[in-house]
C-alpha cells in the first residue's frame, strides 16, 4: 500500500505503520545496496579489498 492507494487514509495509524515499514525496507535496501556497490567498486578497483 502506498499513499496513492485509494484505501490510504491520512491519519497517524497509517503514517506510523507504513512509515516504519518503509523505513525498515529502506534500511535493508540501503544495506544490500551498499554491499553491492562496495563489491562493484572493489571489483573495478576503486576500493581496496580487505583480506581476512
Amino acid at each position, binding site marked *: 500500500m502506498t499513499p496513492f492507494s485509494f484505501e490510504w487514509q491520512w491519519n497517524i*495509524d497509517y503514517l506510523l505503520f507504513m512509515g516504519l*515499514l518503509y523505513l525498515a525496507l529502506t534500511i535493508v535496501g540501503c*544495506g544490500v545496496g551498499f554491499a*553491492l556497490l562496495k563489491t562493484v567498486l572493489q571489483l573495478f578497483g576503486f576500493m581496496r579489498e580487505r583480506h581476512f
Partner: protein
Amino acid sequence: MDSPTHSYGVKRCSPGVFFLWTLPWLGILAWGGLSAVLCLWKGLNQTNMSNVFAFALWIVFDLAVIALGAGAFFTGFLTYIVGKKELKDIINAAVIIGFICYSGAMAMLGIDIGQPLRGWFIFWHANVHSMLVEVSFCITCYLMVLTIEFIPIILENRTLQKVRELRLFGHNLHEIMAVFAATGTFLSFFHQGSLGGMFGVMYARPFAARGGFYIWPWTFFLFVLSAIAAGPLFTILCTKLTEFITRKKLVPDQAVQSLAKISAWLLSLYLVFKFIDTLGWANSLVPKAGLRFMDFYREGPYGFWMVVAELGICGILPAVILMIPKVRQQQGWLIFAGLLTCAGIVLNRFVFIIVTLAIPVMPFDRFWSYLPTWQEWGVGLAVVGYGFLLFSAAYRYLPVFPKEPELNPAAD
C-alpha cells in the same frame, strides 16, 4: 572439482550415506507436496478445518516454528548489537534455523489461506489496524533480512568462495551485519509480538482477549518474551541434535551456556509476567464477560491440566533447572529443560489457537472437536522434513559451526 566434503578441514560422510539420510525427509516432503497440491487444487475442503476451527493445525505449526525460530533474531541481537562475542560460534546455526522456520511458516501460510493468489492483497490493501497485517509485513521483511543474513554463510561455501564477486559481496554483507541484525531485531520484535497481539485483540473471545498498552495487548509482550526465551533453547537443541547425529562436538560449551543462561532469565521473567497476566485476566476481563476462570477448562479434553502442563511442568520446572548453573551445565538436564520449554511454548500457542476457538462464546453454542486430516499433517510435517534437509545440507556444505575444525582436529 574438489569434494565439498573435505572443505574447511572437517570430515563429512560419504555422498551415499548422505543420500540415504535424506531419504526419509524427502519422503515427508513428497507427502507434504502431495498434500499441498491437493489443498491448492481442490481447496481447503481437504482439511478438517471448519468455520469453528478457522485456525487449526497449520497455524499452530506456524506459530510454534516462528516462536522457536526466534533464536535467530535474538542471538543476532546478542551477537551483533549487545556484542556477546562467544555467540559467534552459534549464530550461523541460529540464522539457518530461523530461516528454515520462517520460510517454512510462510510456505504453510501460503497454503493455509483460501486464496493464495490474492495473498499479496495483504500488502496492497493492507488494513493497518490488523495485527495479522503487522505479522505479515514483519515476517516478510524479516524473512528478507534472514535471507540476507543467510547469504554470506552460503557464499562461504568453498566452491562459491572461488568466485571473486560472490566472495566480495559475501564479505561486504557480513561487515554490515549489525545493521541487518538491528533491523531484524526490530521486525522480529514486532511480529513475535503481533502474533500474540493477534489473539489478545480478539476482544470478543474472552479466552484470548487481554488488556494492554496502547494498541498492544499483553499477549504481544508475552509472546515476544516467550519466543526469545524458547528460541535460543531451540537453537541449542538443534545443535545438540546435530552433535548427537554427527557424533562431534560442534559448539563450545561457553556459547551454549551463555545462551542457556539468558534463556533461563528470560523464561523466568516470562513466567512472572505470564502469571501476573493470567491472574489479572482471570480477575478483570473474565468476570467482566460474565465468566469464571474455571469455566474455560471444562470443555472436552481441555481441562485445568493444560495450565499445569504449560506453566508448571513446561514453565517453572525448566526455568528452575536452567537457573541453577550446576544443573544446566549437565547436558542431559539442559536438553531436558530445553525440550520442556519448547513444548511449553508450543502448548501455549496451541492453547491460544485451538482452545480459544473450541470454547464456545455464546452460552447456547456447544463445544466442537477437531482432528486434522492426513493432508494437514502432510503440509505441517513437510516443514520438519524441509528443516532437516536444509540444515543437513547446510551442515554438509557450509561452515555452519566455525569452531568445528578446532573442536574436532583432523585425525590425519
